[in-house]
């Protein structure tokens, strides 16, 4: 039987039995960005976070804050898994009473941003050189002391990663990342 005619569960069985399957049929692991609207209560946030440990799902980052409607919170979750696991993540999130909207925006046109604070040890003699590098990333200086600089950089996670990578060449002391926030480009739901 050729791979094209396999039913999903036959494919699943082949995979579970460790047999070779063609790459396009394999369930490779991908990073997914999921946005949620949940009830703006402590209980709701707890329930979402708890679900990931309860079900053994990966959780790379979570960010949460009030939505436009103050009775709701907007949450952005970054998780990894194959299609079957991501399907389960979405279904289980949907089954929570406190979740109002669950959407996997990974394959939808969307913007993603992350904010990061980076503290670097640096005395007066090194400052100018460091600031020249930082300017390329359009990072802001948010604090300065005689022996340190703290930068704020905002952008897609790739940019933040690149910035932190650059700073490792200096005397990097502390990093604080907000986790991703994401929003679809189109006007589909307004909450």
């Amino acid at each position, binding site marked *: 039987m050729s791979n094209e005619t396999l039913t999903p*569960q036959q494919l*699943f069985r082949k995979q579970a039995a460790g047999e070779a399957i063609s790459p396009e049929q394999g369930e490779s692991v991908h990073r997914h960005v999921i946005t949620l609207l949940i009830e703006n209560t402590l209980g709701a946030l707890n329930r979402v976070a708890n679900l990931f440990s309860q079900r053994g799902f990966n959780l790379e980052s979570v960010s949460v804050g009030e939505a436009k409607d103050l009775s709701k919170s907007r949450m952005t979750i970054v998780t990894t898994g194959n299609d079957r696991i991501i399907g389960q993540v979405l279904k289980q999130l949907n089954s929570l009473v406190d979740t109002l909207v669950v959407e996997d925006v990974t394959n939808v046109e969307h913007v993603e941003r992350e904010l990061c604070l980076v503290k670097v040890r640096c005395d007066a003699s090194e400052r100018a050189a460091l600031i020249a590098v930082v300017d390329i990333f359009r990072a802001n200086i948010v604090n300065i002391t005689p022996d340190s600089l703290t930068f704020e950089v905002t952008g897609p996670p790739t940019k933040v990663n690149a910035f932190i990578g650059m700073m490792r060449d200096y005397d990097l002391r502390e990093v604080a990342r907000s986790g991703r926030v994401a929003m679809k480009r189109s006007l589909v739901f307004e909450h």
Partner: protein
Amino acid sequence: MSQSIVQQSTSPTASAAASAQAAIAPSGVQSVVSDPETTTGLVTGAEILIRSLEAEGVEIVFGYPGGAVIGIYDEMHRIQPSFEHILVRHEQGGTHAAEGYAKATGKVGTVLVTSGPGATNCVTGIADAYMDSIPIVVFTGQVPTHLIGNDAFQECDTIGITRSITKHSFLVRDVTKLAETVKKAYYIARTGRPGPVVVDLPKDMLAAKAPFHYPESVSIRGYSFVGKGDPAMVEKAAQMIAESKQPLLYVGGGTIISEGAERLTRIARKTRIPVTTTLHGLGSFPEDDSLSVGMLGMHGTWCANQAVQHADLLIAVGARFDDRVTGKIAAWAPHAKIIHIDIDPACISKNVPVDCPILGDVSLVLEQLEPLLAEKDTTDWLQKIDIWRKECPLDFDRDGQLRPQEIVRALRDKTGGRAIVVTDVGQNQMWGAQFFSYLSPRTHITSGGLGTMGFSLPAAMGAAFGLRGGADPVISINGDGGVLMNIQELGVAAAHKLPLKVVILNNSYLGMVRQWQELFHDERYSHTDLTPTNPDFVKLAESFGCVGLLCDKPEDIQATIDAAWEVTDRPVVMDFKVITQEKVFPMVPAGAATGDMITVQFNSENTV
């Protein structure tokens, strides 16, 4: 997403109470002290809770008082509510009783306990209800709001502890929302895929006052459930069924929960498709029908498991592809396409990807499906099945020793299958499933998902409370290990004169663990011998005000059961001293392929 609509209306009970109070005031005499509460219509949170339960139509509350809920018990004493409060002897027993009540009646079970240990003692029952989709609402007391988080006396984070084992939970922070919260709790517990809901009640909320209004309906944004299935998928399923040569209905507990058993039976008989059921599906299709192949899975019949392995189409109805059903999943049903009808989207394609998922209420989907199905000729397939049926029927040795299977068969013969059988967990559960023929829904109750030892006795008690006055007896089947885990509830059953038939298949061992030790651990019987500590169950029963009967040889089985059935005003405990070595067969070892069953040939003179 729908917005929250909460219609509020004055409950008839509230106005009835008000007019009753008015009637008490002597006519023509001006009341000296005008009671401000009567005039403003404010009542305590405790009274709101009681009035809400009345308005919800609650019949029985299984409860245990304590400091945090003493206000509720005080109001109960004053109000004498329309529901009955059953004082259990342990909160775990209370939750299992509520489960048994819910399973036997189809209604929502109710539990009321105090804070801290009262709540934590409920955890096992709540987890059990979560795994088996049983609708119960558990009201737990809590320390006053201002003490929450202070490690106060009898404080625990009930909501946190139960978060992953509840369908939903509420902490009441505003007494004016208490009635609405109760309404929501029952609504969530019984709709969609049912499950347990916890309502945590801080003591100050029970003392605070508010007007009582019980809403007629609630809708909760973010909570919805499906009804009918997608017609296109139903049509696809009908076509797959028409095209199949060796179809098999794989029926789970969801069919019974959604009251779809009758429709399922009609469909199976019309299309001549054989039926296998899960442990929780027992009773959804009459096992004396020639289309029934019995239970499937680890201790299912040889016939059912062979049918699964050879089927070209599996129609899963309200079942969830549990690992005790599938065994090694890659080798399970290797030739079958799968149709899966279920109300819970998360259950579909969770363990096994399916070819035709139908999301919907089982009963409604079967209603859509029924007219699309034509009569089918499955003669060849049924003949194959008949061969498997004869190859390895469920049986046991008859060599003059007392064997548990013979006892279960005798119970079936005594009742003609018209009884509610509540089994515990382990060997007794499997023998109870294998050797009693289940003919109709809600006649078999067990702890399937969680596998809670100590479930049977309190659950049978709850079922008996729910079915009081009914014709069919409630039989609790136990091992000698599990029965001791909630034995205290015997006292409650005796106090209420429940004619429970409590069967102990007493092999002086933790039998199922012993079986695994014998088969897979080179007979190292580590900590499974109960001989040194087992009590005299007859005396134990008598001390609780029950009748105790002992039976230690096969020729006494009938007389023992007959004697037990004579007793109608109290529980009877039957201690059957069965042989230790008996094992449950056939068996698919854990993690093995369903095709690789351990079977045994029995020395049976007359096959049952």
